[in-house]
């Protein structure tokens, strides 16, 4: 598979995500996106560097196995209504996502790439994914979908990081991945507390504090 194909698939998952009405479907899509991203460095032919291969495999393990494991546990314990409950309708979300993707292409155009960079699509795809993550974060009510949005946002950053994958010290990369995992873990714990305090994971309840 060529890296361009994988990047295109990633951008397709963005669109599917914002149009999804089920929480567990959204989570599955985030997992698929995580795995796709893990495969890109291998498709770019960087698998010959042992540390890149190792990082790609651990990214797949964390995003494809550990994080969904946390999600499934949260879903089972939380017994939430399985709809994502958007503030913004699905059609509107799709339109916004398309707008964001177009904007990313324009923005990326203004940033020069090092001559000879292979997947030239990487920067707009990264920005578009970042934007999708934002959209999910602000337009969905369920705490779990907000975490999914955060993960999509991180995926966007990961995509951009692929431009630097050969240069990035493994220490830093491991730290980033570990922080992502622990972050989702802590958010999962907080979601559980939200559920026991409010008997729901709807973030509309979290509106008591204001001026």
């Amino acid at each position, binding site marked *: 598979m060529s890296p361009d194909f994988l990047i295109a698939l990633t951008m397709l998952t963005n669109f599917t995500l914002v149009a999804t009405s089920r929480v567990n479907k959204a989570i599955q899509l985030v997992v698929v996106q995580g795995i796709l991203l893990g495969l890109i460095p291998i498709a770019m032919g960087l698998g010959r560097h042992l540390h890149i291969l190792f990082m790609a495999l651990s990214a797949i393990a964390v995003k494809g196995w550990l994080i969904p494991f946390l999600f499934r546990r949260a879903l089972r314990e939380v017994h939430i209504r399985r709809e994502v409950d958007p503030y913004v309708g699905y059609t509107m979300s799709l339109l916004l996502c398309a707008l964001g993707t177009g904007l990313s292409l324009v923005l990326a155009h203004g940033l020069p790439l090092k001559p000879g960079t292979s997947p030239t699509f990487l920067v707009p795809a990264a920005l578009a994914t*970042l934007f999708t993550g934002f959209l999910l974060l602000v337009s969905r009510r369920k705490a779990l979908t907000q975490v999914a949005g955060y993960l999509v946002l991180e995926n966007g950053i990961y995509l951009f990081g692929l431009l*630097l994958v050969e*240069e990035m010290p493994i220490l830093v990369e491991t730290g*980033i991945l570990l922080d992502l995992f*622990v972050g989702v873990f802590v958010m999962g714990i*907080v979601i559980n*507390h939200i559920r026991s*305090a409010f008997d729901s994971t709807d973030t509309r309840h979290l509106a008591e*504090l204001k001026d």
Partner: protein
Amino acid sequence: MARLLLSPLLLIFLPLLAAAVAWFIRSPRIRVRLLPAMGLLHLLLLIIEVRGWRDLPHGAWLGLDALGGWVLLVISTLFTIVALYAPSYLALRPDRDHRLFTACLLAFLGLASLLAQSRHPGMAWVAIETMTLTTAPLIYFNRNRRSIEATWKYLVIGSVGIALALLGTLFVAYAAHMGGVEEPLQYTRLMAEAGRLSRPWLRAGFVLTMVGYGTKMGLAPLHSWKPDAYGETPGIVGALLAGGVTSCAFLALLRIYAIVAAAGEGVFAREILVGFGLLSMVWALVFMVGQVDFKRLLAYSSVEHMGILVFGIGLGGLAARFALFHLAANALVKSVLFLSAGNIHRSYASKQLPHVTGAIRRTPVSAGLFFLAFLAITGLPPFAPFVSEFNIASSALTTGHVFAGAAFLVLLGGIFLTMSDTVMQVVFGVPSPQRVRTPYKDSFATTAPLILALALALGLGLWLPGPMRSMLEGAAQTVEGHAPAVREVRPLFGQAPALVPAAVSAQEVRP
């Protein structure tokens, strides 16, 4: 040689080890004793560490330069004050299990040490992100609906902000990659070869890190987590967040700014910094008007002072040096404000105006300290914040930023007036008849650390010791992009050598 390698690691790993030990200690009374012990030990180790003077190896991953040393000195002092106060506070809340709380507090200190000594932007990012995760349980200490809401907002907004900072850091790394700078990208190398960085990526990277770390600092309009988090946590956590976590984010931002300044893009970055600074002050002023919750009032005051910090850095020169000084002034006075507000909150079982009035009669020491610290933070002359606020304003006016300087002064005045409205009622108002009786009384243990902090703020306002002055100067030079931070530590005691080429001083140092 052994000391050279060991002490940076000790500063990081001793608090982390203490956090692990705290987790396993059964007895709450022994566990809380760990906090002051660790705080004092850390401060002592740090002072010994910054006494030294040597060259920073180019490829070092860890090392304390003047800037990192200054920020860590502030944080370590703040932590010690908070830790001295903590046992008496936690004794007032015997119903709360503080195993996780103590462990997270100690872990924060270790992570702050890691951040201050990080020589690589990626590593600094990891330290800050981990800090966000370890401070989240602190906000949830009260275990009620309001505190869970504050925790969720802190966690989500903070994580998103920090994710943007990561993207910004990657942009800067790509700028270096395009310029052909070799890896690994330590700050030292990035600053020395800043001229080669690709400008569009560097600018975009700065904007992203500004937004990202600005969220963590709580600059308006990215501060929405701040009033909630500060309002719902115990005073100790408020003090540590307002003076510690925000200072850490500020340091991470300054490191990136230093690269931008070294690359000659300072003018571009400064406009953004000044804009964010003034906006934060305006925003704080607007939300302080009629604020009945005095802990939220302090949160907006924190937004204001983060604004002052970036405003000063944005003006550059003398103002930048005093902005760094203001970091210490703000941390010390904020600790007094948050801890005394916590005492008043304990005494009244409320933190809102109609219920809390005339505190000077019920808790004379805490209320007195609260009032004095309010005067100090708004710029009463002998205290440290006055020195920095006055010098930032005067250097704005004398360097041609007349409009910005005038706006700065007007905002400071307006904030003094609006803040005094609430503070005067809390401290001197007529006691309301339907007050809740609580067993809390001011004691030596709950007020002495506050008096110490206020005395330090007063002392710093009157006299800045020479070694600290030279450390501050070194830090300001690094921030402005002049010295690419090859020096590890400026001596805290003894004579400060002038800026000499690295090779020369290396020979001096060798025994």
